[in-house]
């Protein structure tokens, strides 16, 4: 028994060196070669960081495309979903008010055109994307507020649409932050 205890202690120490020092530090060093130096790829404007490429952020102004509802208001230091069950009455009220907001700010929009992702909170609260349909229903509003042609906005949406992986696997989506920055750069 005593032998096992001593072996356990020694083995644990050796493995800590291998698994908690050598392994993670090697990966961190290799990560320096990746975009963002392994610390998350940043998006900068005029030399200032205005966001992270992978993280969604809150857009509420009418001239911007809106992202998905977030249970944590896009707090990137406290990610979480709403964890609301599908039949929770309070939750359903919340969804109803999101539908109403969308209808109010997008005149002419029909309820049946609203895709589920625009009225439901994402899993992380940081979802950077919306569905193609989610972008399509906002084109008229953005174009009108910015006083540009709908055609132009449509083109930008198409440019910032992420196609399925290799054209085959998974859904397509639209990156909200990149799309909005492209709009600002017009």
């Amino acid at each position, binding site marked *: *028994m005593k032998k*096992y*205890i001593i*072996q356990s202690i*020694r*083995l*644990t120490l*050796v*493995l800590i060196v*291998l*698994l908690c020092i050598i392994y*993670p530090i090697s*990966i*961190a060093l290799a*990560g320096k070669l*990746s975009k963002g130096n*392994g*610390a*998350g790829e940043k998006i900068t404007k005029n030399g*200032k960081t*205005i966001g*992270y490429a*992978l*993280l969604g952020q809150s857009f509420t102004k009418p001239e911007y495309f809106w992202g*998905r509802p977030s249970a944590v208001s*896009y707090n*990137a*230091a*406290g*990610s*979480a*979903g*709403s*964890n*609301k*069950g*599908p*039949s*929770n009455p309070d939750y359903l009220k919340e*969804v109803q008010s999101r*539908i109403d907001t969308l209808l109010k700010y997008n005149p002419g929009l029909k309820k*049946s055109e609203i*895709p*589920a*992702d625009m009225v*439901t909170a*994402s*899993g*992380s609260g940081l*979802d950077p994307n*919306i*569905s193609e*349909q989610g972008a399509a229903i906002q084109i008229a509003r953005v174009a009108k507020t910015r006083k540009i042609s709908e055609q132009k906005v449509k083109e930008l949406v198409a440019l910032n649409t*992420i196609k399925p*992986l290799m*054209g*085959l*696997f*998974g*859904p397509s989506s639209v990156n909200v932050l990149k799309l909005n920055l492209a709009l600002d750069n017009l």
Partner: protein
Amino acid sequence: MNTELIGIIATFLLTLIIAIPLGKYLAKVFAGEKVWTDFLKPLETGIYKLSGINIKEQMDWKQQLKALLTINVLWLVYGFFMLIFQNKLPLNPDGNPGMTPDLAFNTIISFVANCNLQHYSGESGVSYLTQQFVLMFLQFVSAATGIAAAVVLFKAFRDKTTTQLGNFWEFFIKAITRLLLPLSVIVALILTFNGTPASYDAKDQFISVQGDTVNVSRGPAAQFIAIKHLGTNGGGYFGANSAHPFENPSYLTNMVEVMSQTIIPLAMVIAFGYFIRRRKLAWTIFGVMTIGLFMLMIPTITSELGGNPELAKMGVSQTTGAMEGKEVRFGPAATAYWSTLTTVISTGSVNGMHDSTMPLTGLWQLLAMMINGFYGGCGVGLLNYFIYLIIAVFISGLMVGRTPEFLGHKVEAREIKIAALITLLSPFLILAGTAISSYVFINHGDAAWAVQPKNWLNNPGFHGFSEMLYEVTSSNANNGSGFEGLGDNNVFWNVLTGVIIFLGRFLPIIGPVAIAGLLGAKKFIPESAGTLKTDTKTFALMTFAVILVLNALSYFPALALGPLAEYFTMLK
């Protein structure tokens, strides 16, 4: 067919393409035969020397278990104190506090047991030091413990009669050097180059396009996420687990992560067959497990793609499926696929919030964890399945009126008693645990805990009951996912689930290893016309029936009160 479905079919096929050769490779590694990774031998020899281990020393099953339990107890003590004192230790750039004793108790058991139920949140509850030196360390060694225990079982059936089951330390170390570590390096690199942070930089702050100040948690996450999946651990680096865009940046990384959590459990089944030179048996087991997986997965995908009927009633388009708690870049099909695998295999990582899935999806998730033997966790999945096999052998033996035999060894009263006790343990822990929590919720709503019992549940009615049932089931299965709406960081849940995780981990390792050790030592009876063959379709069907009947009888009432009741209420 749409790209979402093609995506998951491709993921499953790729998993098979990797797992099958990996299984053959593992059989050779643990048998000590020549493999192409033998260039790592010097590393292993170094570890043996520094640790004072002589791998030529053979152990019987009792010595194997002693070694296993000794080192696991050591990790419990080491990790408990590290977590409590993390605020006083270095590598804590965000200044996170030390854990309370009850939270540290829960967390350390949860990670030693390969469960990774998390009652803390990754961004604020741990430091870089404890993320790496405690949690990530345990993700490696707990997976290796499970694999080594399974290899001990393999050894018992390789030779005709033997008490010499090899050296536990050798299996344990090889599981790390020949399997977990090399694969982790590959997966971590893929993640890093797709955007997951891997550096030790502290929290960042920026002003967003609309002018909000945003704090961003970062840190060495890629390293952690690789082993969290390969070792079927499942504990997230960030609070939102693999739904977080840093943990899982794209559809590609999503495929890589869900494949990494699946390949080792699949490979272990193949390895079993090749190791004991009974390939047909392995394929039979593999077949039962795969059919079981599909029976759970297909209805899950259908239910999520169908969307939320309550939202449909409100007039919202449900063509994109149910999206609450899900991420657009994965979509409902890949999220449903993941949710089945993460509950069938005891990973428990999530790429979408299970609490917000449809009632029937919740039913399949719960059932997958209750069965806990279709593939199952690293090594331990096969141990759980072995118990089902022994029960099936016993019942078949009774039906045809012969002494039950398994692989040429008589299965007698002692082995059956152990198997029966292990079988009864799960329903006992799950049902008693849920009953106690329901009782406290109803009768002691005002107890002065960090979260008062009356505020535990994030959802009313049947779904609230499911939250408690899920928490306890996940603990017993060492799964670690949760209906995360549950207010679980308080002394009640920390202690209750801590105890359940501990019993649900170690007894189902001790039981099967003991049975295998006892059987392996018995006289070998050559196969004859009267032998009950365990590698036939008939016996596969028998095992499947045993699994179905045992679990249905144990859990139907609880499932009826939770997800089924919610489903039927929503139909109204």
